[in-house]
């Protein structure tokens, strides 16, 4: 009995998500929103293959009451799946879909979509819409501490999953469409104490402040998506949003650093190592929020540490992730008319007449971009990056009104004409050439936000624009399986294993679905009464 108690307590002690676990690629567990620190979203599980994926069936559905457009990316550890909705976290039995616990912050001062949790130790980290970083016990959902890191009165809010690395949790903010100042901040995972804060818009007098004109105080450059991390160099990679006001640039002459950029930050200090700005002086709301995927590949014959980035502005970039050096940019989409290309230093070669106008100006890509925060994935076997892309042009309008922060003003607007709606494609890119290897056209209304997961079984799973979870062959893009979830998809799938069976899971608008290969369901006799 004592031995049993010891075993239980030992296994309970061991059941901690260690930093070292997070460094590994996912396996039965899917420990971070992007699967691992590198943002590759590749599962080494290979029970499901392109030959047997046609036998995938739903194993369970977990409905989330009052949910609408779930954006949560499930995270799984030792048989428990953690998902989020509006100011709410749930622990679910990943085998049965049954609720284990739920925690809701009913006093949050703002409602909003949420992208998921981070795990570290025995804790689940979560951010409320009004920017309270929250630590919960992963087994019970009991709250351990809450720390407010920003105020909605300053025009910011949160939709992101926090990012846990080593002993700390990284957070960011949204709100860049109405005037605010973006930042990334690190908090102690143990105590919630703030360790550092990096502002994505410099203060007056700091380097980069002269790239802003007079609006630097409210420049935006929000930080609403989690980043990725390279343990060897202890570097965080974080993307930043648009400069404000989104659609008029006359009050913010200059490049507007560090908006629409990828910044490399020292994890220890938060100091910037380098930055790369994809869209200087953006006027089309092309946030750089799309995952920076870290891969190591031979580049022109030499091994090189790279970061791959499919950007909203329509280009697919390859950078050296040690130095930030620009290596290559190719077209993500065919409908791209604001720049003729990217020059040798990585700066767009802009074409005239593509700024928003009071009467409206048709520009491609549209305001949602050629891709967006929907997750890409990388398959180390095929050496292809799978990216959901949107072929769409929008009418961009500008306003001459005096910008006023935190009043719902973004300097204009953008949207498609009803007869000019876009079409989504899943595309596979070879980063060494930047070329498209295959594409899978989707049907649908042009409203998807769903991304991808790559699996070692040679199947890429993604949510399509018509509410299907779809599997395609990783090498060819040929369709192997689909399932109609019955509503729109605004989240990305993952893969995990439970009881030895590989699963594919995704959040639909109002529910979590888990799929596995067909197995006859066993009859379950009721237990004898005692």
């Amino acid at each position, binding site marked *: 009995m004592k031995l049993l108690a010891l075993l239980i307590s030992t296994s309970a002690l061991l059941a901690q998500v260690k930093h070292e676990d997070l460094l590994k690629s996912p396996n039965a567990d899917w420990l971070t929103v992007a699967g691992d620190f590198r943002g590759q979203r590749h599962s080494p599980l290979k029970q499901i293959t392109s030959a047997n994926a046609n036998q995938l069936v739903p194993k369970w559905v977990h409905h989330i009451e009052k949910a609408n457009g779930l954006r949560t990316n499930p995270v799984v550890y030792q048989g428990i799946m953690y998902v989020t909705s509006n100011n709410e976290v749930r622990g679910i039995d990943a085998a049965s879909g049954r609720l284990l616990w739920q925690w809701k912050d009913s006093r949050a001062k703002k409602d909003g979509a949420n992208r998921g949790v981070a795990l570290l130790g025995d804790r689940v980290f979560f951010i409320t819409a009004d920017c309270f970083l929250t630590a919960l016990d992963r087994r019970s959902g009991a709250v351990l501490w809450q720390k407010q890191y920003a105020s909605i009165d300053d025009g910011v809010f949160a939709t992101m999953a926090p990012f846990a690395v080593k002993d700390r949790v990284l957070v960011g903010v949204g709100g860049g469409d109405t005037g605010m100042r973006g930042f990334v901040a690190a908090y102690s995972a143990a105590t919630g104490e703030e360790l550092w804060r990096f502002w994505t818009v410099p203060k007056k007098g700091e380097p980069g402040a002269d790239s802003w004109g007079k609006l630097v105080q409210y420049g935006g450059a929000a930080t609403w998506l989690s980043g990725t991390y390279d343990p060897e160099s202890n570097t965080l990679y974080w993307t930043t949003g648009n400069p404000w006001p989104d659609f008029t640039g006359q009050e913010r002459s200059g490049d507007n650093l560090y908006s629409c950029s990828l910044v490399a930050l020292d994890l220890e200090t938060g100091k910037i190592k380098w930055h790369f700005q994809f869209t200087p002086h953006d006027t089309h709301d092309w946030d750089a929020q799309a995952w920076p995927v870290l891969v190591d590949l031979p580049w022109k014959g030499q091994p090189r540490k790279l970061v791959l980035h499919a950007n909203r502005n329509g280009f697919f970039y390859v950078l050296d992730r040690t130095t930030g050096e620009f290596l290559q940019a190719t077209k993500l989409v065919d409908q791209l008319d604001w720049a003729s290309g990217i020059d040798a230093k990585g700066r767009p070669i802009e074409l005239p007449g593509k700024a928003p106008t*009071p009467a*409206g100006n048709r520009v491609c890509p549209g*305001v949602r971009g050629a891709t967006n925060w929907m997750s890409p994935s990388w398959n180390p076997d095929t050496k292809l990056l799978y990216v959901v892309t949107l072929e769409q042009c*929008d009418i961009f309008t500008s306003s001459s009104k005096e910008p006023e922060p935190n*009043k*719902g003003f973004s300097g204009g607007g953008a*949207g498609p004409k009803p*007869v000019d709606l876009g079409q989504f494609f899943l595309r596979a890119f070879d980063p060494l050439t930047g070329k498209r290897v295959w594409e899978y056209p989707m049907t649908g209304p042009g409203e998807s936000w769903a991304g991808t997961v790559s699996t070692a079984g040679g199947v890429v799973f993604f949510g399509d624009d*018509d509410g299907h979870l779809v599997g395609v062959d990783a090498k060819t893009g040929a*369709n192997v399986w689909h399932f109609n979830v019955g509503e729109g998809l605004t989240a990305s799938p993952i893969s995990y294993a439970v009881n030895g069976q590989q699963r594919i899971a995704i959040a639909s608008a109002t529910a979590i679905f888990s799929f596995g290969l067909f197995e006859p369901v066993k009859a379950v006799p009721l237990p004898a009464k005692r």
Partner: protein
Amino acid sequence: MRLLLVFPLAAMSMYAQHGDAAGKPAQNPAIGDPAAIDAGKKLFAGGCGGCHGPDGAGGRGPSLRDKVMWHSLDDSALYTTIEKGIAGTEMPASRLPAAQLWQVVAFVRSLSSPAAEMNVPGDARAGETVFSQAGCVNCHARQGRGGKLGPDLSNAGATRSYPTLRESIVDPDANGAVGYRAISVKLRNGQELSGVERNRSNYSLQLQDRAGAVHLIDMADVAEMKDSRTSPMPKDYGRRLSKPDLENLLAYLSKQSLRPVMAEKR
């Protein structure tokens, strides 16, 4: 996209805040009055059209034509919104006197109100003849009589605004014709089908043919497909119909309402 949503939401919350305190809808003779609507249209073009488009179809500001639902918000709330503007947006306060403000309200209301609730010009009885003779009836039905290919028009006036009805006659593809795009397929068994695409994904097709028969098709069975992405409706009715014929046809369609409408009292 996000921005276009922000404006109507802001407008709606404004309506909610400024709704009639007594809960009694305000009545103003300008509402539904063709002369007032016409006067309001001119005022709108001069003052509001810069943002909302001269015909209210939207531009920098949102379209005022798409939300038939807005009718459920009362006229006095709309009046107050135009009078005072919407804080936190680019919508300014108006300086027009009350009578003219009501004309603008009448025009804006006419953009989004069900056509059946408006006093529309034209002769509905003559319009019924146009409906038959111009060929509309070959594709559109009213209460079971007529063609099956196009949208059923039994309740057309109760569910569509007058500008929307007009647009769908002179420019059938203006809203993308979703649910009614022409499509033809050849199945692997050799069968050929054509009609409208009620719905389609990469995996299944719900096709309705000219006779009204529904074909539920697994896309794995489709060998060839021609998807026009446009309505099969002729595109030249705007030229083919004389101005009075079009007006009469619109009057007839505006009258198509299954339930009695409030505006008949006006």
